[in-house]
């Protein structure tokens, strides 16, 4: 087992990977970053979750990129096919590929981070940096909300099935029953939030003033140094990109 990484270290890594990939704008690099993210996810045993969530986000996005740039790319010179105003050009497809792989890499990297980060460590680390605890709470709640919503939805479905609602195997049937569960779900979540707010108030959560943290997250000097270096590298990549594209931009 490798030594535990501080949440800020993994966050910095994710941000730098996204920034460098975007700055490089080089599709083989994007593909490599995306693959690396998938391999790391597999090593953590969460490849299925990362890929599923990634597919939900990326499929519509990549399809729209393909339609938008693949068919309508005004700068395109090499026409591969044409139907009226729609032209498939090599440049358009290249651009769609460039943008699609870049977005895929960024999304997968951030999904990997959010699925692997220890939320309590992150919240504790944020609190240690004098970031308002409410921010940390909202962040933690957002990351724990999905399982909570899924659990609540499951209980509502069970209650409805117990009273005669038949859930079929088809997608349409499932969507139909999901519709029946939405209003109860929202009402139940509001009800939960209301009762929890009183308890949070009583436990001093809303009070202003400094906080302390029970949980201690180790942050070795080596990781601090690594984070600084990674940020400098990312900044250099951005600067390099700007310098590299400046004359090209002026010339065109």
């Amino acid at each position, binding site marked *: 087992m490798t030594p535990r990484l501080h949440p800020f270290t993994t966050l910095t890594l994710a941000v730098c990977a996204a920034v460098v990939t975007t700055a490089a704008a080089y599709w083989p690099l994007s593909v490599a970053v995306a693959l690396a993210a998938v391999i790391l996810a597999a090593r953590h045993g969460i490849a299925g979750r990362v890929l599923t969530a990634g597919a939900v986000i990326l499929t519509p996005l990549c399809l729209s990129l393909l339609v938008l740039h693949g068919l309508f790319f005004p700068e395109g010179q090499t026409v591969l096919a044409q139907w009226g105003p729609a032209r498939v050009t090599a440049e358009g497809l290249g651009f769609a590929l460039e943008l699609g792989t870049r977005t895929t890499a960024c999304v997968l990297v951030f999904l990997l981070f959010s699925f692997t980060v*220890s*939320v*309590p460590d992150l*919240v504790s680390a944020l*609190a240690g940096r004098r970031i308002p*605890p409410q921010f940390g*709470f909202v962040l*933690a*709640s957002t990351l*724990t909300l999905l399982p*909570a919503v899924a659990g609540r939805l499951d*209980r*509502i479905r*069970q*209650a*409805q*099935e*117990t*009273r*005669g*609602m*038949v*859930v*079929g195997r088809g997608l349409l049937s499932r969507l139909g029953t999901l519709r029946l*569960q939405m*209003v*109860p779900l929202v*009402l*139940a979540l509001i*009800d*939960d939030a209301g*009762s*929890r707010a*009183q*308890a*949070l*108030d*009583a*436990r*001093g*959560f*809303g*009070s202003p*003033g*400094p*906080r*302390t*943290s*029970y*949980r*201690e997250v180790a942050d070795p000097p080596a990781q601090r140094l690594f984070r600084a270096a990674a940020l400098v590298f990312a900044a250099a990549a951005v600067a390099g990109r700007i310098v590299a594209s400046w004359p090209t931009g002026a010339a065109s």
Partner: protein
Amino acid sequence: MTAATRTALQIRIEAFTFHGDDTPVLRDAALSVTPGSLTAVLGGSGSGKSTLGKLLAGWLRAGHAGQFRGSLELGGTVLEFRGVPEDPRINPAEWSRRVAFVPQDAAAMLSSVRATVAEELAFGLENRATAREDMLRAVERTAARTGLSHLLDRDPATLSGGELRRLAVGCAVIAEPDVLILDEPLASLDAAGAAQVEALVRSLCGAGTGVVLLSQAADRLAGEATHWTVLDAQTAHDGRTVTAAGTVTAAGTPAQLAGSAELERAGVIGIGGPGGIVPSVLGSGVLGSGGSGGAAGARLPGPVPAAAPGPGPASLELRGVGFGYAGDPRRHGTGAQDRVLRDVDFAVRPGEIIAVTGPNGAGKSTLLRHFNGLLRPSAGDVLVCGRSIAGVPVGKVAASVGLLFQHPRDQLFERTVLREAAFGLRQLSGKAPAEGKARAALAAVGLSGTEAAHPAELSASRQRLLALATVLAREPAVLALDEPTVGLDRHGLEALQGAVDRAAARGAAVVMVTHDLDYARRNAHRVLELSGGSLREI
């Protein structure tokens, strides 16, 4: 805590009305708490106990949550409230350092964003910027007091009911408050869990904390109180309308009030737990240490319910059913080899009432969920009315099996009480009779008149009765009830008993799961114990 007789906390309520309501939920009530004492506030469902507790603890704040006329006195400082904007404001965080409250639903006490029991305990201290060394000591001390020392690294989401309740109490007492208010602290706990919470209350009182117990049962813990206050929803006529508000109908020592007419009218359950709901038997046995006393079931004099069923095909039959939660990491300690159910064989005939008992976590709810297919056995078969339900959708099995969930909140999802009771009835019995059946089921559990209310607005006891009505309305051949007595006051228990009897009389097979052995013995033809994954008759 030198002056043991000094009042720590006192409340005098002329009236408290929630915003948006016309009539008060509490009026003419008073309570005082002295350090180191145990005070019990007893009352039936809807008597305003929880409202009183939340007012005392600053969870419901005057002006913020509703209009309060009266006064609060804490440690010699008196706050007067006249129901005007100039009234004093309570800072809930500061107030709760002195007066702590543990709600009926212990899970609602937790922050839900802390990963371990230790961190959850420390949450309140973190918010008050307590130094880390002090926090470590306080967590260790509180954990030892509440018996949580061996659970400090556990995820709070994986705790049992009794452990969760002790964690909630731990979160409340870690700041060493003068007064601790506990809302139904023993509800849904088995004997072992209840004994742990009782011992904790005793040690807190011994250390000088004034403890207020809000309960609808005059149980063993309430019997140890020095003072009882009886709250009851009293109706008042003001010309055109009839309103009900919680008010103090009696106050005194347990010896003075045991067996009193006020206690009976309030719907308070006697010492024998839900089994002993006949208050006249409370009498001398009320302070005894035993649980059962002389309390008999509702069907005086004998413990035998309706006539035993005759021979015939079983309404429900389990054949060699085995089941385990393998692969679910949130369920602590269950592995592939750790089965919840093993080779369970059991049959219920029409008209038969069977009770299944066992400690918390024995798998009683898991067993019930097999009856309608919410859980599928990994071995064996479940037959309803002679037919296997393997592969049959739950929604179809639901025509023959009605399941009352352990937590009514998991069962209720509609916008009004009537819609709730009528959900799914249309497909079952057609449009026209559906509403009639729903109304009849509501009437059968005493909920007529609440049709337009939102289920979440009902008291915990009425929510359970509504959940029961949703099951009864479908007139299933098998009635499976998961802890139906929890949270019910005496009136609610009577409604439950009537409904179960009628269902059995029309030929329904009834299986109820309960941790209350007394209740099981009095109200079932057969009592089975689930232990180690197997059922055996006791």
